């Protein structure tokens, strides 16, 4: 696809969008796992308070790393998971409140295409039975009418009517995904959640399925929520994109704008991970260090602060080396881990006696992280103080000092959504307020 084509297409659709009304409004939606139950402990915060709108007839992309909660968000929108809090308004009704018959009646409006076509079709049923089942559930017409309708649907998705009597495993992955799409179309929904519909397919087949989905949207006026981690596919098919990290929407806005001029530091780093076909391109990649935090223990403040390349640093330490900052971040992770770990009585005694425990001593950690670095005096003294506290097993105090000295607004307060362009693009970052430098400037400076 040429860049031109993508841009013009996106412009047209974003113009169209403004005239359209909201189909789905999501407000402060939360989905936590493992909260209820007999031995409920800290829940896993898969979706931690997201708010956005999906407009009639658009394709909204939802991107993010694996495990960031995008599939859970999609499933919650269809009530396959129970929302812990917040609301999902579909045409004005809050569907998280629906149950029984109302939920049953609503379900035909919204359907889902699943990621793995091998697992989403029941192999013991023929293709016809699979596509027909939703019709039977809603007691749609006579058996004869149903059969005719299913054959039409098979035709629409590019299969042939005689495939009705075949079994799914007689088909290739792309064809199986077509069967899945035919099934979702059976009830003529308005809204479809596409959960990585092409990521399990060969590249050549991906294009066919994407084209099919686009044709169907045109023909039936469907609204898509397109969940993906392949950014090039998202750039191709989506009108708008939402970027998700650790259960939060980091940035949401029109596709072309977001791809060409990202506002959020996380979007910057995601986009810089796309391989450039130009071998002479020299732009430095932003590499994110470490792994995303455990969603059971999300960090305070901004969810991205542990890995953010544009994190706000206290002015007195602004000149510290990047490697030292990396070390400080790692030290904080280690301290948090130690704080959470249960210490058995036996381990406490061993520690008292100066024996080895499974907790490596803090001094070793310090040596690993900072031993080879040249640390300015002021920072070094603070680090020594932190290590002293930690050596006494007073992780709380050590963390308090660390946050006090090296922390900033990023760790202390949750950011607000700021509108960053005329099209209403929003970004979830402290750096959009007046007193801080823009993320893009900081990143240019640091990388």
């Amino acid at each position: 696809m040429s860049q031109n084509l993508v841009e013009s297409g996106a412009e047209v659709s974003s113009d169209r969008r403004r005239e359209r009304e909201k189909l789905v409004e999501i407000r402060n939606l939360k989905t936590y796992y493992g909260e209820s139950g007999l031995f409920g402990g800290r829940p896993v915060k898969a979706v931690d308070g997201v708010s956005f709108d999906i407009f009639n007839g658009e394709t909204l992309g939802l991107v993010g790393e694996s495990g960031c909660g995008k599939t859970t968000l999609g499933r919650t929108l269809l009530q396959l998971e129970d929302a812990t809090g917040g609301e999902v308004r579909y045409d004005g009704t809050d569907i998280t409140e629906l149950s029984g018959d109302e939920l049953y009646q609503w379900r035909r409006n919204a359907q889902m295409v699943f990621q793995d076509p091998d697992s989403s079709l029941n192999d013991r049923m023929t293709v016809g039975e699979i596509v027909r089942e939703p019709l039977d559930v809603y007691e749609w017409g006579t058996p004869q009418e149903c059969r005719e309708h299913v054959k039409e649907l098979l035709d629409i998705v590019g299969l042939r009517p005689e495939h009705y009597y075949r079994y799914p495993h007689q088909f290739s992955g792309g064809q199986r995904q077509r069967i899945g799409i035919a099934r979702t179309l059976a009830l003529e929904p308005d809204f479809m959640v596409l959960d990585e519909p092409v990521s399990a397919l060969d590249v050549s087949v991906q294009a066919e399925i994407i084209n099919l989905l686009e044709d169907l949207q045109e023909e039936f006026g469907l609204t898509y929520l397109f969940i993906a981690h392949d950014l090039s596919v998202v750039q191709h098919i989506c009108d708008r994109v939402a970027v998700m990290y650790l259960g939060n929407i980091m940035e949401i806005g029109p596709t072309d704008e977001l791809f060409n001029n990202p506002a959020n530091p996380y979007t910057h780093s995601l986009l810089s991970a796309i391989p450039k076909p130009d071998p002479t391109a020299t732009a430095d990649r932003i590499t994110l260090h470490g792994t995303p935090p455990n969603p059971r223990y999300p960090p305070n403040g901004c969810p991205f602060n542990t890995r953010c390349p544009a994190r706000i640093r206290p002015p007195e330490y602004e000149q510290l080396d990047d490697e030292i900052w990396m070390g400080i971040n790692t030290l904080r992770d280690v301290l948090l881990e130690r704080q959470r770990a249960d210490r058995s009585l036996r381990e406490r005694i061993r520690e008292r006696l100066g024996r080895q425990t499974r907790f490596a001593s803090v001094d070793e950690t310090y040596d690993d992280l900072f031993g080879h670095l040249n640390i300015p005096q002021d920072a070094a003294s603070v680090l020594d103080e932190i290590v002293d506290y930690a050596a006494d097993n007073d992780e709380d105090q050590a963390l308090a000092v660390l946050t006090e000295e090296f922390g900033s607004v990023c760790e202390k307060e949750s950011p607000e959504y700021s509108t960053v362009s005329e099209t209403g693009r929003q970004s979830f970052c402290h750096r959009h307020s007046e007193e801080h430098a823009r993320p893009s400037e900081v990143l240019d400076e640091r990388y």
Partner: protein
Amino acid sequence: MSNTESEQSMTDTAVRTDGGTETKQSLRQRVLSNPEPAAIWLAGLALLVAVELGRFVDWALTIGGGIKFILDGIVATPTWVGSNFEGTLGFVAGAVASDITSLLLLFIVAVFLRAYLPFHPDEKLGLDLSRSRHLWFERGFVTAVLAAVVSVLVFTPIGAALKNEVGFYVGILDSLADTQTLLSRETIPNHGYQTASGSWEGTFLGLSARSAWLVRFTMVWVYAAVVMSWLWRGYNVYREHYRRMDWTPRDDVIDRLRSHNWGRFGLVVVIGFIVLALFAPVIATYPIQENVYEPYSQDSEFKYFNEEAGEVQTALHGDANINSRSQGAGSQNVGINQYDDYGRYAPLGTTTSGEDLMTHIAYGAQTSLSIGLIALFLALGIAMLLSLASAYYGGIIDLMAIIGTDTIISIPIFVLVLMMSVVFQQGDVWIAEPMDGGLLLALIFAFAYMPGMWRSIRGPSLQVAEEEWVDAAKSYGQTPLAIMRKHMAPYVMSYLIIYGSLLVGGMIIVTSALSFLGYGVSEPTPEWGRLIASGRNAVSTQSWHVSTVSGAMIAIVVTGFNALGDGIRDAIDPQAEANAGGSGGGA
């Protein structure tokens, strides 16, 4: 959709198997449009059934009798509940309680019948109900209709008339069941006597008693083999001419089973066992009623040639049995393939009480098979429901199921069965009567084996509950019950078949072990384990056959069931690990 054309041609080649012609017709129409293969097959089947019509009708009546037994029990519950209430709360409370119980029972029936309603009563009445109200309305409607029908039958003479009518048809069936069949004692009699001249009187074509019995015995197996091959042919006819699909996944399963030697051995043994049980009245050397159950009744008199007196005399089976006992130790013995003093041929010898061992073995197979099947289906049904529900809902239901079944599992299965059968048999409850404790044993087995069964299929159930097609079904509003039935049960079913066939072997062993100890199936119902127990003192003597034959039968049949289970498992899932879940072998 400009590129659909090219896509179609591309995707076509990707279809792995070809064929599958489009047919919109129902099976009936497909048969009518090409009637020849079906007609030939059906004619053959009709011929096979016709020669044994009496026996088929007899089996149907037996099954009908079993169903009637269960129905009578259910019908008796409202009265029973009512009388319990009446005893404490007075007549009115009793009447109300029995009415409520009847309505509840009818409602349960209505839940199943609702799907077959030819029209929607709420739509006729112009009511606009939501889905669940619509369901409840229809169930209520069907209950009301049923209640009306039942009241009419109970409180008006129509009921009595209907009963007469049914009785009349059952009478016709009874007389049909009594008609002579090709394979029967009447057609091929084997019980006669040898006159002084050496010729045989009263046997088939004047053959010796031994040859006559052998002819009948062989005929049974030939008939069974012909029926089985004809059924197989029928499946092939259906597959070739009438099935919509050219190929289904089940075809591969059958092909793999056909090339699995160990599994084939198992299949042959199991079919043989079933034939032995079903044709026990023909295979048995003498009618069990005369030889075992009522040997001293007038019907049990037979003629024999008394060599000392030199003339034909009559004797009762009971008296003859006393003189034909196989008790070893130099005294009396009628061994394998011998005649006793009364000219009675005993293919496998006699038991310690002088009864014919072949008769015992054949009817003992019937006992084992009935116990095994009743227990198996109950245990499978409960285990299936429990595992599907606990896998689908999870949470507290799952936990309750785990706790409940763990409690049962914690007691060794043989001890549990032993305790329960002692308690119930000492308590002399009505359920201990059918089959001299056989039915009770089946129910106890169902209870005791169900948790292990549930455990074995819990894993597969949890696995299939996580599949995306289950989510997909939820997303278009399929009901939980339908999801379990259509999207989960078929995947668990194959495991049930495997574990079930292994379980039957275990049940046969435990039944025999209990009977051996004197607690299982009591006299006079024939049972293999009791034969072993009675003959075990004589194993080292000339009467070795009593324990040995019955013990060998148990060993072969149990091995057969295990082999069949292995074969089916390998056929269903070629990659399956060889862990049979500890259900085979029983105690």
